[in-house]
């Protein structure tokens, strides 16, 4: 009950703060739609397939590779950094709030944001004629694992590397953009040279992207994407563990300030 109450309190606070920043909220909506349209039209034009079909393939990549990456990874880094800059983190340490609830609160808030972006991306894609036949549950599981992994990585970057708000963009860009390109968020991975494709296979975004394209664009079953799913699952667990360790070390450092 305590964890649940605290988790919801943290999540609600993050979402309320986002709601207050209407401009940010609008941009978080515009960004995935813009990426979807660009990806879809480029993909359709290059592959010579109808727009509707192109959108079916562009939607998963735009969602996990771009929208969720920036909102969930960038968002969780920004949340932690903003708490540190406002020094509210110290007030949280003084309170009985547990670290688990804090992490879960950030995760739940970003789940809401992620689900919002999922609905937005797929509504626009459907409006342009795309059809999706795959398992909704399996697709959502991949989306949740992606959010979990992104929040975990965001926690690590936010606690360990980004000390100030100005650091956030540089860190997200340095770590993120190469991974997005290698993950097939902007360009199909089929055009990657062999050596880059080898590197891409250890990139979680590549697996998120391929798994979601497989399920929601190609209608694949779990067995067909199991390798990618378990890769994501283990990656998410590892990032949560590392995120937790990073959080503990942050508590230790910040407490002494």
């Amino acid at each position, binding site marked *: 009950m*305590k964890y649940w*109450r*605290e988790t*919801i*309190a943290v999540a*609600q*606070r993050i979402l*309320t*703060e986002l709601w*207050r*920043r209407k401009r940010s909220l609008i941009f978080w909506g515009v960004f995935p739609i813009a990426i979807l349209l660009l990806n879809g039209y480029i993909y359709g034009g290059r592959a010579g397939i109808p727009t509707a079909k192109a959108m079916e393939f562009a939607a998963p990549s735009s969602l996990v590779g771009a929208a969720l990456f920036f909102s969930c990874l960038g968002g969780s880094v920004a949340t932690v950094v903003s708490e540190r800059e*406002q*020094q*509210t983190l*110290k*007030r*949280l*340490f*003084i*309170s*009985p*709030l547990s670290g688990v609830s804090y992490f879960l609160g950030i995760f739940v808030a970003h789940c809401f944001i992620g689900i919002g972006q999922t609905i937005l991306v797929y509504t626009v894609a459907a409006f342009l004629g795309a059809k999706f036949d795959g398992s909704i549950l399996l697709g959502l599981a991949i989306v949740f694992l992606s959010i979990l992994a992104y929040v975990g990585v965001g926690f690590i970057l936010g606690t360990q590397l980004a000390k100030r708000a100005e650091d956030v963009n540089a860190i997200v860009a340095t770590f993120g953009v190469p991974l997005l390109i290698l993950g097939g968020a902007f360009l199909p991975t089929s055009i990657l040279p062999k050596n880059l494709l080898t590197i891409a296979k250890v990139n979680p975004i590549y697996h998120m992207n391929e798994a979601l394209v497989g399920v929601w664009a190609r209608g694949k079953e779990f067995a067909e994407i199991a390798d990618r799913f378990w890769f994501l699952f283990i990656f998410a667990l590892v990032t949560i563990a590392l995120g937790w360790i990073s959080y503990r070390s942050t508590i230790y450092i910040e*407490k*002494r300030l």
Partner: protein
Amino acid sequence: MLTIKNLKKNYGKRAVIKDLNLEIKAGEIYGLLGANGAGKTTTINIICNLIEADSGTIEINNKKVSQGTKKYVGVAPQENLLYKNLSCQENLKFYGRIYGLDGKKCDRRIAETLAAVNLSDRAKTPVESLSGGMKRRINIAIALIHEPKLVILDEPTTGLDIETRYEIWQLIEDLKKQGTTILLTTHLLDEAQRLCDRIGIIKEGKIIAEGSLNELRKLIPAAEIVIIKTKETEQAISRGKELGFCHRYYGNDLAFWLPEKLELRETLELFANINLESISRKDVDLEHIYLELTKNGI
């Protein structure tokens, strides 16, 4: 309410708290007075279970400090640690829930706390658009939301203008009337003198004197302080010595400690042979006691 025994804390080889003992009774305002670096914040951090002491014990409400005692303590840090995009009500609701309040009880406490800090009409105002004094009041309100047994106010008026300072003092006096136990850290001597039932002076991690203002007054042998301005300083000091008065410099002011209160006329007669520019009398206050006990001032 709060008992600290033989508390010690080192940062590396530097001893920050050296055998600190302190007791705060329920319903009193205890002022912890000390210069920057004297150990006030470290003591608070240990009470809040933010850092661990190297040795010694702290009990709050007869329970040893732990994660579990955090709910007994409400802390208003010296900076306004608030979520600026949220309203006063939302800030309070967030912390209320973190401290275990829910539903109607939380709503009731928000209303009561806003009323206590005189901000009921600002409940829905975003914190970022409040004045400095209002922000400080909300900062204190957050410390009160869960009805803690002990409220710690860490330099609550530092950096505020004089009008806002009076507002905060009024608020603290109101809290005292409601029976709240308060640990107040400050380096503003007039603040401690006005608000605190008992005062502990901390220096280099140790309480060097403790008691009510009247008890502390007894630590220096003066009933009254006479401050004189004269160009004949040496003669004035000699005359003071003849009369058996201790003398001190408070800034540029030459002061004599009088063992008993005298009429102004009598005082003037004592220094009749000195060409005085001005003479004034003051009661012994916390400033004189503090300077005497710490020797090097704030």
